[in-house]
């Protein structure tokens, strides 16, 4: 096969899997599984971003839930803000004409006037980028414990702000967030749109994977991996390590933020539990299980674990399960579960059968 096409092989495989899962689930009349699979997809966006940051740039972040919340909450605030009292003002009328402000009806038939979801999306992403840059410039200079604590601290500040601020709904969060119109489809939790939403979510993930893969295989990706290997050596080769690290930090923040925005529209709201530091730890755990610098592993683990967690299989042991996973992986399989010796042989065998060249011959790759 042409090598250019070969790199799209896993992507096409994933697309087939996504379609197959939908067909099987729908055929067996268990469409309710699609809801959790859709939510898992949005959480997987956070995971993909964190995977780039941890696995490829070698930077831990315990504040991803903070970025998720910045996206989700900004979008929720802008799309639920009540502009009816100002509906006569010229500015609002003009904004309405350009589709920036839109009218909709709530459950009781009252007219609501707030910003359009697409505008909220753009605003939320811009806000995320700004905050990520401001936080990122000092943060990426830190290493190890300090980096972990600083990002954890950032997440906690966002958590405290959310809990203590009236217009962010305090402990109740924000509800009544409208659906997100998308080329005739809509990202929303209504039951009739379950299947289309499943596809929207996974197409978004697919695009994110494509973006991440191209990034990893580009000059940027090689630079990042050299930073992970040895920052001093990378700098000696003329790589602007600070700039690459910052760019990755911001990109991972944007991934988390987009996940937050879309999930908020899908769920119709967002609450402070999405911001808790446990969520951030959970994301780190998933990336660690997947094998840090393994996008596909992270994506697979994210889907499986988030799905199981959202279906409530872990019960009241939810957080404990993720903590235990984190410990077991870090103690026994620091290269990720998929690279555990037994599984690696299996994977190599699979690759040989498919004659699919990849990491198979590379053996144990170092990361830490």
């Amino acid at each position, binding site marked *: 096969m042409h090598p250019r096409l070969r790199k799209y092989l896993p992507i096409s495989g994933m697309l087939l899997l996504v379609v197959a899962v939908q067909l099987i689930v729908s055929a067996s009349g268990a469409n309710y599984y699609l809801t959790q699979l859709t939510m898992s997809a949005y959480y997987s966006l956070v995971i993909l971003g964190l995977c780039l940051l941890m696995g490829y740039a*070698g930077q*831990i972040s*315990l504040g991803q839930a903070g970025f998720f919340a910045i996206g989700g909450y900004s979008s929720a605030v802008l799309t639920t803000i009540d502009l009816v009292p100002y509906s006569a003002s010229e500015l609002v009328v003009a904004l309405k004409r350009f589709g920036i402000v839109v009218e909709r009806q709530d459950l009781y038939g009252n007219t609501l006037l707030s910003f359009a979801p697409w505008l909220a999306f753009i605003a939320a992403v811009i806000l995320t980028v700004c905050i990520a840059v401001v936080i990122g410039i*000092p*943060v990426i*200079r*830190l*290493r*190890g*414990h*300090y*980096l*972990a*604590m*600083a990002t*954890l*601290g*950032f997440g*906690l*500040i966002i958590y*405290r*702000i959310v*809990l*203590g601020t009236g217009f962010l709904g305090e402990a109740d969060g924000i509800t009544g967030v409208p659906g997100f119109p998308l080329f005739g489809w809509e990202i929303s939790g209504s039951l009739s749109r379950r299947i289309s939403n499943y596809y929207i979510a996974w197409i978004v993930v697919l695009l994110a994977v494509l973006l991440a893969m191209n990034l990893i295989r580009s000059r940027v990706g090689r630079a990042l991996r050299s930073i992970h290997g040895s920052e001093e050596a990378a700098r000696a080769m003329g790589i602007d390590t600070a700039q690459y690290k910052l760019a990755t930090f911001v990109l991972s923040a944007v991934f988390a933020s987009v996940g937050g925005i879309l999930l908020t529209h899908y769920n119709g709201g967002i609450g402070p539990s999405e911001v808790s*530091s*446990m969520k951030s*730890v959970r994301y*780190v*755990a998933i990336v*660690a299980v997947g094998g840090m610098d393994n996008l596909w592993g992270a994506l697979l683990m994210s889907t499986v674990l988030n799905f199981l967690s959202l279906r409530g299989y872990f019960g*009241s*042991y939810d*957080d*404990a399960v*993720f*903590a*235990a996973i*984190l*410990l077991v992986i*870090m*103690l026994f399989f*620091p290269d990720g579960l998929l690279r555990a010796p037994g599984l690696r042989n299996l994977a190599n065998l699979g690759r040989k059968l498919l004659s699919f060249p990849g990491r198979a011959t590379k053996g144990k790759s170092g990361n*830490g």
Partner: protein
Amino acid sequence: MSFDQFFQYFLSGITSGSIYAIVAIGFNIIYNTTGIINFAQGEFLILGGMIGISLSSFLPIPLAIAAAVVITMGVGALIDFLFIRWLKNPPVLRLVIITIGLSILIRESMLHVWDEKVRTLRHFTGTEVSSVKILGAYISPQVLWVLGISAVIVIALSLFFRLTLVGRAMRACADNRSAARLCGIRASRMVTFSFMLSAAIGALAGCVISPLTQTQYNMGSGLAIKGFTVAILGGLGNSTAAVIAGLILGLLEAFSIAVMPLAYIDAVSIAVLLVILFFRPSGLFGDREASALKEF
């Protein structure tokens, strides 16, 4: 602000400050012998408090606290045996993640062993309504207990590190691990000791503050991040400076209540943490050049 009011804030500031200092010292003890920041440090306080509360229902308070300290010490040793000791030259990132996992696991175990209810230990002297009047400010006798026991912990630790053989051996390990081993000190045993010591003072502090702050299974991480802030503020590894830094943070928090909504108080100390990490990671009293050489 009248003097009485000022003094009241001041007392509450040094009370919480002294607790933060104890947590910070716990961080420092483990950091000095292993280079690890133990993210589960806050859980030691809550675990100690919880055990103390449960035992106090059938034991007199001093005995209950002593038992809680010993049991938590055992947990500290167990953590080292099971999770730290046998790793060979693990990278910092891996250790960070391990101790984070541990802190959550301890927290969730506490949730299942006890429950999510808020508990308190009885006041050591008097009840929750009794108070002592000092310079026009009313304080609970428990505050005096907290301040007294914190002072005892700090003094006892500095004597321990200076005068006893084990304490000196631990300091030697902190200074230069391989040199210490050449002198016949078992470094791995010192690591176990440091985990036990940290757990013990954590448990003691957890019991002493319980009547004032109450004890709930999920309070550990909040204490840990403040203790860490104090440890950094004073300069990581420097326990004398941690006491001063603890008092600074405690006072800062107490007086920020006067100007800020209560809900943002925790954000204040975390903001202090971020500022100090970004601009002076060696701490207020630390040596900038020495800290640049350390692997954080």
